């Protein structure tokens, strides 16, 4: 009767915020359109209705001022609050880049460890037919910045547990959510998988830096995040038909990164495909690939493969966009490539 029901990512995030705001008075949300009565609860309804419980004092609606949103969150964090700021699309992080890169990420270091910045910055990523200025997956920019942690949940359980961990963390955490994974109703999102999960009633966190193995397999490891996890799972299903066992690993946070989980998987499979929606050139997959070749080359049966967006901005046209974002079919064919490319001779 009282069976727990599966929930969406959006709901999981909202629950995490609600619980953390109840638990800790210092948690305050800062962003555009996040707590307007009759409004949407942010661009993707994650904070929908929260102003009824917490008021506009703790659900702070801002002008369109991404730099001030992040800057104010930094200051509030230093001054004793635990702000959860957000930008409506991750593309707008570039408007706040100085605050993020030069201030949030560096103040702790350059002050000699004098202060803490317990700040969470939420930002939706991914292409969903909005074109070049609303469809980027810019996670690699932040992956390259010392001083920021990066969380990127692929499902409701992780979304809730990681957001709680991020709020309780004393360093700035960039929290990336994928637009096609929110599970929003309304107009169909053609490429959106349906991702709901039952999550525990009890308080829990997913510690930053711990990977999730979505599927075990002995033949090849696919490392991916966000939407790509679900495409990898689809690909794994397809390949299972051919007797190929795919292991799907989601690091869940890019910084810190769970190297132990990846190493263990490589011991088993010896083959690695990295998939991300951010551009392939200079993407975080390149770092993983380079590090694996340099440090775990002895485990590899074939060179690491990477599949990611081409080096062009996100196009508006849906067929072009479909060609821009990696697909399950491409994952399948790239896995075949990985399997075909044995290091079968001495180099």
């Amino acid at each position: 009767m009282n069976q727990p029901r599966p929930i969406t990512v959006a709901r999981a995030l909202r629950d995490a915020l609600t619980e953390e705001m109840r638990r800790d008075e210092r948690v305050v949300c800062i962003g555009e359109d996040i707590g307007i009565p009759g409004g949407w609860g942010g661009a993707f309804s994650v904070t929908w209705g929260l102003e009824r419980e917490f008021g506009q004092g703790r659900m702070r609606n801002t002008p369109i001022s991404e730099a001030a949103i992040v800057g104010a969150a930094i200051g509030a964090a230093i001054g004793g609050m635990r702000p959860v700021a957000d930008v409506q699309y991750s593309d707008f992080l570039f408007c706040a880049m100085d605050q993020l890169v030069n201030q949030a990420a560096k103040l702790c270091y350059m002050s000699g460890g004098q202060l803490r910045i317990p700040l969470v910055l939420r930002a939706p990523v991914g292409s969903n037919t909005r074109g070049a200025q609303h469809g980027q997956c810019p996670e690699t920019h932040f992956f390259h910045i010392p001083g920021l942690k990066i969380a990127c949940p692929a499902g409701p359980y992780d979304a809730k547990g990681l957001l709680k961990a991020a709020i309780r963390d004393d360093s700035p955490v960039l929290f990336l959510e994928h637009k096609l994974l929110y599970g929003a109703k309304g107009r169909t999102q053609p490429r959106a998988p349906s991702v709901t999960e039952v999550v525990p009633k009890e308080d829990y966190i997913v510690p930053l830096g711990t990977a999730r193995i979505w599927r075990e397999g002995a033949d090849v490891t696919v490392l991916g995040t966000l939407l790509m996890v679900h495409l990898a799972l689809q690909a794994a299903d397809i390949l299972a038909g051919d007797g190929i066992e795919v292991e799907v690993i989601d690091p869940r946070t890019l910084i810190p990164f769970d190297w132990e989980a990846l190493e263990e998987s490589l011991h088993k499979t010896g083959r690695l495909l990295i998939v991300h929606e951010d551009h392939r050139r200079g993407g975080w997959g390149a770092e993983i690939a380079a590090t694996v070749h340099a440090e775990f080359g002895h485990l590899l049966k074939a060179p690491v493969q990477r599949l990611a967006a081409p080096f062009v901005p996100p196009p508006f046209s849906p067929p072009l966009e479909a060609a821009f974002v990696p697909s399950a079919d491409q994952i399948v064919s790239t896995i075949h490539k990985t399997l075909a490319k044995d290091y079968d001779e001495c180099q």
Partner: protein
Amino acid sequence: MTDTLPDNHRLHLYREMLRIRVFEDHIFELFEAGRLPGTVHQSQGQEAVAVGVCAHLEKGDFITSTHRSHGHAVAKGIPLREVAAELYAKAAGCCHGKGGSMHLGNLALGMLPAIAIVAGSIPIATGLALSQQMLGSDRVTVCFFGDGAVGTGAFHEGANLAAVWQLPVVLVCENNQYAASTPFDLTSPVPNVATRAQAYGIPAVTVDGMDVEPVRDAAAEAISRARKGAGPMLVEYETFRYCGHSRSDRNKYRNEEEERRWGERDPIVRQQRRLQEAGLLDDEAAAQIRAEVAAEVEDAIDFAQAAEAPLPVALWADVFAPGEAGMPDYWPGEETGEVSQ
């Protein structure tokens, strides 16, 4: 000034507003029916601003626009077919299907492809105006933006620079009372956008944006000032969008009384009434205009629906300007149009 407008010009203003209204109404139906990809930000209710401002511009003058770009595109003279095809993401669209609703534009017709980062176009408009000042041209740049833009750093830096260099740019704020769901007074410490101009020593006015002839007059003054080299001006138009912010927004954060009040000031109804009172339009003529406009819109949408999607190879095109002197951008292992064909 209104009294001196030539009759056919006053009719033109009417017809242009109607073209935008009918086009956007139609587009919205199609969008709701799932025929259009992406999202749409419409401007029903705000037509007087786009039309009244652009009425005074030459083809060689520039405009810049925002996420809410349909009305500006039509008013600046981009053919409806090109606009519709772009909304349908077709190769025949003004951006060849790579821009979409938020990036309409045709530089040859004087419209920079719209920029959907709020206020992102303001510094760029400043630069366009700088180029014209330096090239000794008398072209003017009009920069459209919403009330939400004035909170951004980009607005401030752009407006300040325009003032410092006395550039031929007109800052046109369409204050439609809301930025997405956020009412203007919740995020502005001053009651008018025009007040902000004091920080830059830029002359500014606040004007009724629901009446196309006064809209046009205020724009005319600002534009000719700029054209003469007298520097930038800010014109704030008070207006209202009838529709939701985008897509399926149902405006629950507004109230009906407010919507009714603004609806009573509808710019198209007002201009029609004015023309009728002046004896410039009778029922028959009005019906004919409506029929012509409906036919044009119909044609544009038929065209767009029948048009082709971009070729797959378009994915890789136009990252860089064509015909470069240096080496092409090539990366081993990266897919490109050529490899995949």
